[in-house]
């Protein structure tokens, strides 16, 4: 039987261990330990294939200490598809039943509750408390469905993102609807665990739910939900027959058609590219266009941005496996943001916001961290 890694056999041999990936890997940058750098992981994966190593707990602990940010792949001069291999190594471990216990538990929760957090599944609209009902109604037939995502619906520090987004939609006069209890986890936590097969039920359910609304478009504030819907759903479920778009894309549409009036914000701002929005989805310009549409705002790029963007440490379920490592990565990114002289760090992802905001709090750094939809909501010109 073919394993998930087999298609990469030639690719793995092609790594000539130049070590250039260590220059960009966020985990290596904070730990400086070669066992956690892409070159090292590729060597271990090769050893597993050659029978030099067994798929031990030690092997798994190293493979999963990676945020799957994917910056290693474009860095590799040999063209090794490092990000694909690192995901396949997870698929392989999951198939062997070798998930680290914390991730095994996460996988069980998502499969059982259809949500990243078990409790949150009970109250899918807790984030919307006090807001007017959606213009398009909940569960009503409408053109646009907003898929909120687990992070934004469940974590208090991220709930302001969907709150802001729906207010922006209302202001722009866009009718939209929410899936509420019919919105299940998009499948991302299972997929990055290596449990893509187990995610299929979630994917099929979500697609069916959106279709039942008669919607033509589905929008996301979470770039991981967006990436999974845009790239993995069609692989698993065929043509979705839907337009899948990230909030930043919808915002550029609203900005271009002048449906949003924004007041001046004379501030220096820097932007953090979420890995799933940037490298995985190629969306770099949309958020920058939105920022450019805010009068008097000055965008200052960080040293590592766009395709070279440094991870927030929150991806790949790393936060679940090794919170300390995840936080160390976030703190390094925060330092890069500080170097721009900006005191406002904007991103377009609830998870990135949580990681970076928490880092700023821990370090006592005067850096305000906002999702781009929150920023837009705050500068909406209410005509007063």
């Amino acid at each position, binding site marked *: 039987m073919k394993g998930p890694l087999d298609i990469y056999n030639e690719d793995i041999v092609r790594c000539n261990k*130049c070590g*250039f990936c260590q220059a960009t890997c966020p985990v290596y940058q904070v730990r*400086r330990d070669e066992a956690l750098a892409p070159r090292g992981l590729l060597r271990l994966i090769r050893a597993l294939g050659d029978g030099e190593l067994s798929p031990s707990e030690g092997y798994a602990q190293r493979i999963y200490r990676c945020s799957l940010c994917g910056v290693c792949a474009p860095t590799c001069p040999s*063209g090794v598809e490092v990000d694909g291999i690192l995901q396949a190594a997870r698929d392989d471990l999951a198939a062997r039943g070798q998930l680290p216990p914390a991730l095994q538990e996460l996988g069980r929760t998502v499969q059982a509750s259809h949500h990243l957090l078990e409790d949150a599944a009970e109250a899918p609209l807790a984030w919307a408390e006090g807001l007017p009902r959606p213009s398009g109604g909940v569960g009503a037939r409408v053109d646009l469905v907003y898929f909120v995502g687990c992070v934004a619906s469940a974590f208090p520090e991220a709930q302001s993102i969907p709150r802001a987004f729906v207010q922006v939609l209302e202001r722009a006069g866009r009718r939209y609807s929410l899936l509420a209890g019919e919105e299940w986890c998009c499948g991302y936590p299972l997929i990055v665990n290596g449990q893509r097969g187990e995610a299929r039920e979630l994917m099929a359910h979500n697609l069916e739910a959106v279709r039942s609304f008669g919607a033509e478009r589905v929008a996301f504030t979470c770039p991981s939900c967006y990436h999974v819907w845009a790239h993995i759903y069609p692989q698993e479920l065929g043509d979705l027959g839907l337009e899948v778009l990230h909030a930043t894309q919808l915002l550029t549409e609203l900005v271009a058609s002048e449906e949003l009036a924004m007041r001046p914000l004379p501030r220096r701002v820097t932007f953090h590219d979420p890995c799933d929005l940037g490298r995985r989805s190629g969306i770099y310009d949309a958020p920058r266009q939105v920022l450019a549409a805010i009068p008097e705002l000055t965008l200052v790029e960080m040293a590592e941005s766009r395709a070279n963007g440094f991870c927030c440490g929150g991806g790949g379920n790393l936060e679940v496996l090794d919170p300390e490592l995840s936080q160390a990565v976030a703190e390094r990114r925060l330092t890069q943001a500080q170097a721009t002289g900006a005191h406002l760090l904007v991103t377009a992802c609830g998870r990135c916001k949580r990681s970076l905001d928490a880092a700023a709090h821990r370090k006592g750094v005067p850096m305000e961290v906002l999702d781009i939809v929150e920023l837009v909501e705050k500068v909406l010109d209410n005509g007063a």
Partner: protein
Amino acid sequence: MIPSTLLSHLESIIGLTGLLTAPEDLMVYSYDATLTEHQPDVVLLPRTTQQISDILRLAGESGTPVVPRGAGTGLSGGSVPVAGGIALSLTRMRDILEIDVQNLTARVQPGVVNADFQAALAPLGLFYPPDPASMKACTLGGNVAMGAGGPRCLKYGGTKDYVLGLEVVLADGEVVHTGGRTVKNTTGYDLTHLFVGSEGTLGVITEITLRLLPQPEAKRTMLAIFDELDDASRTVSAIVAEGILPTTLEMMDNLLIQCAEDFTGAGLPRDAAAILLIEVDGFEEALDRQVATVQQVCGAQGVREVRIATTVKEVDDLWLARRTIIGAVARRRPSMVLQDVTVPPSYLPEMVARVVDIGREYKLPIGVLAHAGDGNLHPLILFDQRDGEEMAREREAEAAIFAASLELKGTLTGEHGIGLTKRKYLPQALSPREMELTRGLKALLDPHGILNPGKIVGGDGEGPA
């Protein structure tokens, strides 16, 4: 194998998170960027000079090999722990301790990455010339230990020209400070430069005082395209003979142009036999004249075209293509060996021609990459290490390249070091008396042979140091 009592002593020095013994960890500290691998018995990631001193004292008492390493991007096997023992990774000693703008010096820890150091200097209008292709990943400690170079060495010299002083932990654990903070220093024997390029065989470098330069005001980057490889190499000699000293004068042949273009899409001419990447720097007013002279020399040697980069992006793309080429060739064949022979620049055309002949004779694709201006060639031999017969031919081709370089008044290595891969050729380059002196120095500083055994001299095949 390391006895468990020694391990527990080491752990008490370095703590739980700085000591690794899992099979996975030993595997990833068993190599550098060459094909050689050998696992250490334990990996240590110290943070202080004191820890290293304590480690060496223990290692000395127990006769345990200690192999220092930086980022493991070396190209001669210098950091491969061939005798097992301790792999001592210095990557966690990563602080820039001081940048002295008034005196144009800096003090750094060995784990500082070259490019991070450059980035810290740039806003101050300063730079540190050595720029190995791996500069984004490699450490300054590794650069000093291996005597690293880079394209800019043509005009500015290599690592050894910028090391003013060192803190070194000796084999018995004692910490010494060599040299100082001044460019001029003739106080006694030059111990500092004894350690530069010593590949971790004489001591462990724990702090480095470096000389800095003010950034040149401006630079111009040119791409000269040739239809004949020989014309390109003659142009290099001609430019040097003309008395111009470009910052860099890099050569790539067609095979490497193709590989670089596959990775970067920088717009290199895929149909050219060779290109020269030429950069000049200095005062803005002086550059046009230098560019004109370079164009004239190229013209006289039958250049097809000289392009001058006009945007920062064009310059960056050209350099990305050059810096990543060593990795990019892996797109063609699974395995690669890179030589580092260096000849006086006037011998460059002859050396290039011989490399081409050697490739033909041994039926192996050899890419010609060169820091051509200083005669430093990096012939890249491509093969498949899984094919034993091809591997044997590669070894013979390698030997032929070394022999050719020595015959043309050149050296075995310009900037990668002897390490493991060139060790057996050392007696061809050094006289018996020089070998004896080298062994004597090694014995003086490392009487028990614990420091990176098996590199340069001593260890297996060399007899006791």
